[in-house]
C-alpha cells in the first residue's frame, strides 16, 4: 500500500505537467497550418531551371512557382495574355516582334542573392541569348543543352535580340512563324536575372544558375533535399498579387499508394496523379480537380496500303467505333471523347465541323458501297506500355476489335516492345495503329503539322502516311499570319478535310487530375504548363 501511495504522488504531478505541455499554443497552430501548403509530387525535379528540361515533373516543380514568362496562356481559352511583357507588337511581315516590359517586377531576394534593381530589358536579352549564343558562358556551362528550344530550332529562327530601351526588347526572326509567341509562352521560356548571372561569373560558380534559382515568380527557393523535399517561401514583392501561401513544400513521394495514404491522413494538402479516385470522391474532406490535358489518342490507318487507301473504308470504321464505351472502360471516365484532333479548349476548336457519329448501319452501308460488304480482316497495332494519353492501348484495341466484329470486320491485335514498336511504325509496317500525341504548346498547329503534314511523312511521325496538298497549304498559310480569325478559318477548313478523308480517328483527350483537401481553395491545375500555387489559399486550421 505504501508503494501505491508513493507512486500516485509521483504520477499525478507528472501527468499534469504532460497535459499542460500538450495543451499549450493552439492559436499559432492555425497560422502555421493555414499559411503553409504541402504538395506531394510524384518525383524529383531534374533541374531548377525549366530551360533545361521538357519533363512534366520538373515543369510542375519549377516554372509556375519560381519564374514568369513574357507571355502567359489564359487558363480559360488558352489565348495569349500579358506576363512580364505588358504588351507586344508584331510587324506586318511578321519578322520583328517588340515586347514592352513591365517596370515593377522584382527578382527574389534570398540568402545567396540580393537584387539591386528591378527586372529590365537586359534580363530578357540575357535569358534568351543564353539559349542561342554558343559563345555565352551560360550556354557553355550546359553544353547548349536546351531540349525544347532545340526541337523548335529556336537558335536558327532568332537572328537577333535587340535592346531598344530599358523596357523594350525587339526580336528579329529569320522567317515569319505564328507559333513564335506561343513558344515564348511555354513553361520553358522563363526570364532569369542578369545581375545574378554577373554575381555567379564573379564567383565562378556558373552552374548555380540552374541549381540555386533566382526568378520573378510567386515563390522563392529556400531548400532542396534530394529525393525528399523542396521548400519554397513566399516572394513578398511579387508583382502580380499578394500570395496567400507563405510556405510551399513539395514532398517528393514517388509511390502512388503512399501519396494516397498521406492525403487520407492530411499529411499532404494536395497530391499529384491520384489513384482510387472513387474512394477520394466518396470522402467529405477530399476532392478531385481535373483538367483536359493537351493531348489526343488516335487510331491511324496506313493510307498507303489497301483497303485503307479508300477513304470510305476508313470512314466506315470510324462509324463503327463506340468511343463512349472506350472512355468508360479504358479511361474510367477520365477523358473526353474526341471529335477532332484539337481538344475543346483550343481556340481553333469548332463544333461546327461535322462529326462522324457511332452508327453500325452507316458503317455497313459504306462498306457495302466500297465492295467490302462481306467484311475483311486486318491488323491493329497497339503498344503494350501505358502512355499519358492512353492508359491501356491493348484494352482499347480489344474493344475496337469487338466493335468491328459487329460490322463483319475481323481485326488481329499486334504488339511489340515500345522502341521496336516505334521503329516499325515509323517504317510504315503497320496497317493501322493506336497511338497518340502530347502537345508541346497549345497552338493548334502543334496538333497538325507534326502529325499529318507531308513533311512529317518523311520522318514517319505521320502515322497515317497521308499527304494532302490542300491540307498542307492550309497549315502553311495559317503559320504565316497572326490574325486569329483568319487562322481559325484555315484550321476550320483543315479539320473539315480530316473529317472527309479520315486518315485517322481521334478517340480521346485524357484528363490530368490531382486530389486535394477541400479546405484548399483556388485553381492549382491549369490546362497547360504545370501546376501553380499562386492563386491558392487555405481556409480554417482543422489540420493535425
Amino acid at each position, binding site marked *: 500500500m505504501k508503494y501505491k501511495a508513493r507512486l500516485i504522488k509521483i504520477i499525478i504531478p507528472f501527468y499534469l505537467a504532460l497535459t499542460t505541455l500538450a495543451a499549450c499554443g493552439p492559436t499559432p497552430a492555425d497560422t502555421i497550418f493555414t499559411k503553409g501548403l504541402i504538395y506531394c509530387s510524384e518525383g524529383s525535379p531534374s533541374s531548377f531551371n525549366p530551360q533545361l528540361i521538357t519533363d512534366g515533373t520538373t515543369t510542375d516543380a519549377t516554372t509556375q512557382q519560381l519564374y514568369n514568362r513574357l507571355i502567359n496562356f489564359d487558363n480559360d481559352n488558352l489565348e495569349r495574355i500579358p506576363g512580364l511583357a505588358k504588351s507586344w507588337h508584331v510587324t506586318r511581315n511578321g519578322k520583328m516582334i517588340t515586347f514592352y516590359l513591365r517596370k515593377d517586377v522584382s527578382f527574389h531576394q534570398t540568402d545567396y542573392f540580393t537584387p539591386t534593381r528591378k527586372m529590365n530589358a537586359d534580363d530578357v536579352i540575357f535569358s534568351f541569348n543564353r539559349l542561342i549564343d554558343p559563345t555565352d558562358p551560360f550556354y557553355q556551362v550546359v553544353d547548349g543543352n536546351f531540349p525544347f528550344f532545340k526541337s523548335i530550332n529556336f537558335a536558327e529562327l532568332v537572328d537577333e535580340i535587340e535592346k531598344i530601351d530599358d523596357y523594350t526588347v525587339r526580336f528579329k526572326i529569320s522567317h515569319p512563324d505564328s507559333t513564335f509567341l506561343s513558344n515564348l509562352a511555354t513553361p520553358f521560356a522563363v526570364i532569369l536575372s542578369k545581375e545574378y548571372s554577373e554575381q555567379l561569373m564573379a564567383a565562378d560558380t556558373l552552374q548555380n544558375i540552374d541549381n540555386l534559382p533566382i526568378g520573378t515568380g510567386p515563390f522563392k527557393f529556400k531548400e532542396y533535399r534530394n529525393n525528399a523535399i523542396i521548400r519554397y517561401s513566399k516572394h513578398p514583392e511579387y508583382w502580380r498579387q499578394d500570395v496567400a501561401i507563405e510556405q510551399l*513544400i513539395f514532398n517528393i513521394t514517388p509511390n502512388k499508394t503512399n501519396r494516397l495514404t498521406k492525403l487520407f491522413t492530411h499529411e499532404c494538402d494536395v497530391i499529384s496523379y491520384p489513384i482510387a479516385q472513387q474512394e477520394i470522391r466518396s470522402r467529405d474532406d477530399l476532392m478531385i480537380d481535373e483538367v483536359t490535358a493537351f493531348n489526343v489518342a488516335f487510331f491511324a490507318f496506313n493510307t498507303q496500303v489497301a483497303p485503307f487507301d479508300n477513304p470510305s473504308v476508313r470512314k466506315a470504321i470510324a462509324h463503327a467505333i463506340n468511343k463512349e464505351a472506350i472512355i468508360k472502360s479504358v479511361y474510367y471516365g477520365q477523358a473526353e471523347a474526341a471529335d477532332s484532333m484539337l481538344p475543346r479548349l483550343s481556340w481553333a476548336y469548332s463544333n461546327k465541323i461535322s462529326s462522324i457519329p457511332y452508327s453500325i448501319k452507316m458503317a455497313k452501308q459504306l462498306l457495302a458501297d466500297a465492295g467490302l460488304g462481306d467484311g475483311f480482316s486486318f491488323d491493329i497495332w497497339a503498344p503494350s506500355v501505358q502512355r499519358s494519353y492512353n492508359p491501356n492501348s491493348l484494352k482499347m484495341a480489344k474493344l475496337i476489335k469487338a466493335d468491328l466484329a459487329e460490322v463483319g470486320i475481323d481485326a488481329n491485335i499486334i504488339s511489340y516492345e515500345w522502341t521496336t514498336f516505334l521503329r516499325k511504325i515509323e517504317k510504315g509496317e503497320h496497317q493501322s495503329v493506336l497511338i497518340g500525341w502530347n502537345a508541346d504548346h497549345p497552338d493548334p498547329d502543334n496538333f497538325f503539322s507534326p502529325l499529318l503534314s507531308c513533311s512529317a511523312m518523311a520522318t514517319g511521325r505521320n502515322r497515317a502516311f497521308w499527304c494532302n496538298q490542300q491540307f498542307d497549304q492550309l497549315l502553311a498559310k495559317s503559320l504565316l499570319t497572326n490574325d486569329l480569325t483568319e487562322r481559325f478559318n484555315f484550321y476550320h477548313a483543315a479539320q473539315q478535310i480530316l473529317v472527309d478523308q479520315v486518315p485517322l480517328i481521334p478517340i480521346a483527350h485524357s484528363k490530368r487530375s490531382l486530389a486535394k483537401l477541400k479546405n484548399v481553395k483556388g485553381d492549382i491545375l491549369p490546362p497547360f504548363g504545370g501546376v501553380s500555387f499562386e492563386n491558392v489559399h487555405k481556409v480554417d486550421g482543422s489540420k493535425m
Partner: protein
Amino acid sequence: MLIFALRRLNLLFFTLLMLTIVSFSLSYFFPGEAINNISGQINPSVEELAALNELYQMDKSIIHQYFAYVGQLLSGNFGISMANQTAISADLRHYLPSTIELCLAALFIAMVIGIPLGFLAAIYHNKPADKAILVFAMVGYSIPVFWLSLIFILVFSINLSWFPTSGQLNLLFEIKQVTGFKFVDILLSDSPYKYLAFKDALMHLVLPAFAVATAPTTLFIRLARTSMLEVLESNFIKAAKAKGLSKAKIILHHGVRNSLVHIIRQMGLHFANLVTVAMIAEVIFEWQGAGSWLIDSIFHRDYTAIQGGLIALAIFTFTINILFDFIYAAINPLERHKKHGA
C-alpha cells in the same frame, strides 16, 4: 574494472579491424574501378584522378592501400556518394541521429512493456496469465515488421486518424538542424511553434517506435520470464521465503534486481536485431534515417554509401553492445573479474 574495460575496447578494436578489411575489399569486389568505388568520384578529371590515387595510395601494395583507406576513415573522409556526389560523412551526420532516436525510443518501449510482462508471466507461472502473455509474445515475435507497420498505418492513421504515417515532423515546421536529433533540435530552436513542433514530433514517433519495438518486446518478455523463474528457484529466495517474507517483498526486493542483471546482459546482443527491424520500418514510415538512406543507396548501387553506411551502423551497434556490457558489469560485480570477454 580497468582491465575489464580494456578487454572490451580490445574486442571493439579487432571487430573494427575485421569490418574495415571487409569494407575495403568490397571496393575491389563491387563492379567498376576500385578507386571510383572507394572515393565515390564517378567521372574524375585527370588531375582529380591523380590526386585520388595519391590519397588512397593506389599505386602501392594492397596493404598500403588498406592503411590509406583506414587513415581516411579515421579523419572522417568516407568518400562521396556515387548517386548525388555529396559527402558520405555529411549524409551520415544527417541521417544517423534519426535512426538512433528511433532505436532508443523503441528500446525504451520494449523495456517498459516487455520486462514487467515477463515478470508477471514468471510470477503467475503456468497460470492463465502466463499462458496469455506467452501467446502474445509468440504472436508478436512471428509478425513481420513491414506487415505490422502497414496494419498500424491502416488502423491508427487511415481509419482512426490518430497518428501521421510518414516522416518525423510536419514539414511545415522549419526546424534548423543542429545535432540531427529531432527532439533536441526542436528544443534548441527559437521557433515560436517549439512546443507544437515537439508534440508533433512525438506523434510522428509513436507508430514507428511501436512497430520497431514489437519484436524486442516479445524477446524481453521471454528473457524476463526465464530469468525471473531462475531467480525464484534459487536458494536465497527459498531462504527468504523460509524467513517469512511476503511474496510481494521477495519479488520487489530480491527477484527484480537479480533477474534484471541477466536481462541487461542479453539486451546488448539483441540490439543488432532491433537496428535491422528499424531499417525496414524506416522505409515504410519514410523516416529520414540511416536505414532508409542505406536501403536507398543499395537501390541506386551507390557503393561508397553502402560501405560508409555499413561501417557507421556497425560502429553504432557495437558501441551500444559494449555500453550494455559496462552497465552489466557495473550492476554485477562478479562479471568484472571474469577473464574473457563474451
